Structures are given as C-alpha cells and as structure tokens.
C-alpha cells in the first residue's frame, strides 16, 4: 500500500539546499544514473535504486513519468538476498555432520565451524531469490518537503543516503521539534527550546 492506492503511512522530510538550475534536466540525468538495477540474474546480495511509482519493473522512466506538476514522485526499490538464521543453522549443522562422518572425527574445531558456516551462507545466498521492498515518495519542489510512505526506520536511513547521492541534497525528518521551528517565529522558537515537559494532572 503506497500513496497511489488504499490507505498509507508516511513521514515528512524537509529538503535542505537550493535546486540546481534546469532542475528537470538535472533530475532526468541523476534519476537515470541511480535507477534500480536488477540482481535476479546475478549473485549480488543487495541493490537499491529508483523505479516508477506506477510500476516497480520500470526503471527507464519513459516520458519523465516521475514528474507530476511541481512534484517528483518516485519509488525507492530495495532488493536483498536473505537467508533465514534457522535455515543457515540447519545446513551448517548438516555439513558438520557430513564432514565428521567423512573424516571419522568426533568433533569439529571452532575455526572450521566458522569456515563451514561462511561457506554455507555464501552457497545459500546465491540460491536465495532477492526479496523486494518498494517505498514511494513524493517531493514537493515548491516548498522543499517530501512525503515518504513508510514508517520503517531502516528505509528512512537508506532514503537519506540515496537522496543525497542522487540529488546532492540533504533531507531531515520533520519531527515535531523541527516542524515547530518552521512554524514559529524566532522569539517563540527560543522559548520553545527552553520549555520542559509539563504534567497534565
């Protein structure tokens, strides 16, 4: 559920800094440069990039589909190969048993156990299908704010990094205190900085 249909969850960010001149040309080039690259046919463990909000398989953005009026709408797609800890444990133990039998030894040393675990993890990782996650965003260019449609903290951090790499701009989550600084004048902001929690009973 994103911002295109159904109910949605979101947080607000402010976008810090000035937009470059010829913003749409700049955006076209940068979004393409940081578009999502599929890892289904590779052994890569992780891939992150931009796709169209309408279609997670569209990373070509024909006709600048990310432009809607004075807004940029994009989806952040993250594909990651993961191996569940229980699966890794099972196959590592299975391999230990096989080696014990093969070498006729009663016990496997710590170093060897680690080696086995790493080898099995790498083998399982190659077999695992990348798990996709897609999060929508909507950037209001005229008031430099951005709605990001997830409350997942890890995704917030990944967005901050990719946004900076793509557009060279920092974003800051609008927690109540930052929001208050924007809503109040200078005197009131100073008073706000000094207030402490009050008891409502």
């Amino acid at each position, binding site marked *: 559920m994103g*911002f295109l249909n159904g109910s949605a*969850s979101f947080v*607000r960010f402010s976008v810090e800094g000035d937009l470059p001149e010829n913003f749409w040309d700049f955006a076209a080039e940068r979004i393409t440069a940081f578009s999502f690259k599929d890892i289904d046919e590779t052994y890569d463990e992780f891939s992150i990039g931009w796709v169209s909000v309408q279609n997670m398989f569209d990373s070509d953005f024909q*006709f600048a589909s990310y432009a809607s009026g004075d807004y940029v709408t994009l989806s952040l797609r993250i594909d990651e190969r993961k191996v569940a800890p229980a699966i890794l444990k099972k196959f590592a133990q299975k391999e230990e048993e096989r080696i014990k039998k093969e070498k006729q030894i009663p016990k496997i040393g710590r170093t060897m156990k680690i080696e086995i675990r790493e080898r099995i993890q790498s083998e399982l990782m190659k077999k695992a299908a990348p798990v996709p996650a897609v999060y929508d965003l909507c950037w209001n260019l005229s008031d430099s704010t951005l709605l990001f449609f997830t409350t997942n903290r890890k995704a917030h951090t990944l967005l901050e990094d990719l946004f900076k790499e793509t557009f060279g701009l920092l974003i800051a989550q609008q927690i109540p205190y930052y*929001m*208050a600084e924007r809503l109040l004048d200078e005197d009131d902001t100073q008073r706000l900085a000094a207030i402490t*929690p009050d008891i*409502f*009973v």
Partner: protein
Amino acid sequence: MDLVDLIAEKRFIGQEFLTWLWWKSEERGGSVELPGQGDVTVVFEKHMLLEYGEGESSEKCICSGLQSELKEARTGLVMGKKLEQARIQVAQNDYEWNFTMAAAVMEFRNVKLPKTGAAQEGGNSPEEIEGLILERIFLFEELVRLVQALFRMFLEVRVSNSWKDELVKIRSWVHTRGQMT
C-alpha cells in the same frame, strides 16, 4: 545534537500536542476553531496508546474501543500518562480523513483519504493517472496542512504566558474525565 537524542529529549512536544488536541476536540464537542479557517472536526476514536516515563522505565498502555468507552485511556491520563498514538478523524469542508498519529516523531499511519469522484472513476491514460496522482498528493498535503495548523495553534499557546491558564483547564478536564470512569 543528533536526531536520536533530539527525538528522545523532545518527544514530549508531540505527546503534549496530541493530549492537548484530545482535550481541545472535546472542549467543543469534536470541533476545533482554526484561526482564519473556521471549524475543523477533530474526533478521537477507537484506538489509543498512552506512555509514561522514558527509556527502560517507560510504561505503555494500549486502549481500544468505541469513542465513549476509552475509559482506560482516561484513567491513564489521570495517572499522568500522555498520549503517544491515537486514531483521529479530521474533517473540513466536504473532506474527511482518518489516520493514526504517532506523536513523538509525528508519523501519519494508516491514512484513509476522503473519497472523491476521480479516485472512483480511475482511468489508464497518462493524463488520467497524473490527475489521480496529483489529487492524492493534494489530499495528503491537505491533511498535513490541517495538522500543522492545529500544531501551530498548540505551540503558540504552549510557549506563551497563557499556557498556565490552558493547563488549568486541561487538568480540570483530566480529573472530570477520570471521575466519570
């Protein structure tokens, strides 16, 4: 100060806002007058999460039920807890939103947008899709604008000298509500 520390130190601002908004909405029977904009319907419903204390010593209390039955939440207020999450209905003009606000970081969760004609008709042409996107953006931003206007209203009282008087009224409401349960 980094963001994590700032959230921890200032989380009370969002929580006090949400608690104030609950009082404010009940003060006039589910309606708040926004300066220069007229009345906005603000109704707290179904689900609330209250919090007391910080870090490891914090206590949480989840309450859900019909609006009139949020007895535990009201008792929680009397015990000094503050609202951390609440399901709220906000309406202005012909638009009505339902959403859960997580106060400490001001997250909008499970936002249900007003029903509109365009959204129901749909369409597949690029113009129709762009129209739908722009309408959804407008409705999300309109909700943010309303919440910001309410937040500004709270902040202006909170940093002013009249906060003491407001606090007296809120405390009286908390006690009256507590006695009703």
